[in-house]
């Protein structure tokens, strides 16, 4: 019998905090609430199973080379938490800080990358601009000739960026939270959130009602539906994002490579598979289906960068849901009109790398009932107050 990573518990009729969503963000929040703040009477409720959503469907790329001060500091905290996470959770997360390339294919994108490098360095994040021969030295198989439709003009190189085993992050946060007394309830679907006189009273689920004074919504692509239950409209649009994994290939790619112009990013796992991701589908959708069109355009773009890969075969493709915000920054926020309700969403295509800092700060916000400085910029109503945190220029791919 394999050792269970977390236990099944009877559902209590009340908890101090209910976290909706058993992905990396929800579980990290539960873990840090227990570890940093001693709050352990917590239920994490998940409609399917742990890691079913974006946490199990992303391409597990980590980096902090963002564009705004708020973004850079936040993702830098996240990356630093990731660096110590394997030791802290006593779990091999296979974190490999192999370095991260963002390729530029136009003068405009080189300018944007140069600005990012400067901002990054000013805030202590390691980022530099490389020219094509320097790129070629580190990625010998890349085509830096002027034959492709979009020749490479340079790259933003970010040495601390890398990849991690995403399932292991989810499982180890779940185990860490479980060991501290948190209850994880899978196959539990939220039907309503109970609010009285502007205060949270509980959560109605398909397995009965749970009484609580604090509810955290960490449901990414499904956030609009959950927040509607307390009368909050969000600036989110849910789009699918597709990815694929190839069959094993010789160890060949030792860095993460991203090209926003070609809409692709790829990395190689320790098993030799290439994990490849794309931009989001161009219309909103709640279905997680993969398309042939994605496969075709991906293959064409990949071979422009790396002609050597023409024989590599596709093993599997899949899709996940992304909750896109207008400024490509997340929402981590209290709500003025509903005391005890917290929103954690807007993770779009950039969520996995943010989950430790997201959990850390959300936990602090719930425990202290006030917004930590680190995430003050990420309020849900910043849009209508015209306080956007523009990270579109730092998104992996032009969506």
């Amino acid at each position, binding site marked *: 019998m394999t050792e269970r990573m977390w236990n099944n518990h009877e559902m209590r009729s009340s908890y101090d905090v209910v976290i909706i969503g058993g992905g990396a963000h929800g579980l990290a929040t539960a873990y840090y609430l227990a570890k940093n703040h001693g709050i352990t009477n917590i239920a994490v409720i998940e409609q399917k199973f742990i890691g079913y959503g974006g946490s199990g469907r992303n391409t597990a790329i980590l980096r902090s080379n963002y564009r705004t001060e708020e973004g850079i500091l936040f993702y830098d905290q996240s990356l630093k938490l990731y660096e110590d996470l394997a030791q802290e959770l006593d779990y091999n997360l296979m974190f490999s800080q192999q370095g991260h390339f963002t390729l530029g294919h136009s003068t405009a994108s080189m300018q944007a990358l140069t600005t990012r490098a400067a901002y990054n360095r000013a805030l202590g994040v390691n980022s530099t601009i490389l020219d094509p021969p320097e790129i070629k030295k580190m990625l010998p198989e890349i085509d830096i000739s002027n034959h492709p439709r979009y020749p490479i003009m340079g790259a933003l190189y970010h040495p601390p960026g890398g990849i991690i085993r995403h399932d292991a992050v989810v499982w180890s946060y779940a185990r860490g939270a479980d060991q501290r007394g948190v209850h994880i309830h899978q196959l539990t679907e939220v039907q309503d959130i109970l609010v009285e006189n502007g205060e949270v009273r509980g959560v109605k689920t398909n397995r009965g009602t749970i009484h609580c004074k604090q509810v955290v919504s960490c449901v990414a692509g*499904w956030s*609009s*539906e959950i927040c509607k239950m307390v009368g909050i*409209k*969000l*600036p*989110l*649009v*849910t789009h699918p994002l597709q990815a694929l994994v190839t069959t094993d290939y010789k160890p060949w790619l030792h860095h993460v490579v991203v090209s926003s112009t070609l809409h692709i990013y790829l990395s190689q796992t320790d098993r030799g598979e290439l994990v490849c991701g794309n931009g989001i589908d*161009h*219309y*909103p*959708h*709640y*279905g997680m*289906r993969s*398309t*042939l*069109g994605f496969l075709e355009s991906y293959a064409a773009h990949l071979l422009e960068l790396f002609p050597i890969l023409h024989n590599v075969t596709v093993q599997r493709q899949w899709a996940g849901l992304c909750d896109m915000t*207008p400024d490509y920054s997340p929402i981590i926020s209290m709500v003025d009109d509903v005391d005890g309700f917290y929103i954690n969403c807007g993770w779009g295509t950039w969520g996995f790398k943010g989950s430790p800092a997201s959990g850390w700060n959300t936990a602090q916000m719930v425990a202290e009932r006030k917004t930590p400085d680190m995430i003050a910029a990420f309020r849900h109503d910043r*849009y*209508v*107050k*015209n306080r956007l945190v523009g990270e579109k220029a730092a998104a992996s791919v032009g969506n």
Partner: protein
Amino acid sequence: MSFQLNCPNCGKRAVSEFSFKCEYMERPEADADFKEWGDYIFLRENKKGTQTEWWFHRSGCQSWFLVERDTTNNTDHKSFWYKDLKQKK
């Protein structure tokens, strides 16, 4: 799986010919306050289920039109002109 979108002008075409624009919302009056306009610009229903939305036939007749579509599957959607939306109501 991709699907074919029905353009009221050109008929069924591959969805890749079109641009999704935005879910349909009533536009505020010109003299509406800052908050009302802010909500209109940024906030979305983002409905899981049937919603009415703006589409644009980018690689075709360049028409803007409305589509009633279930966002959990794309089958059996309805396409129509804006003026017909008014008639519906």
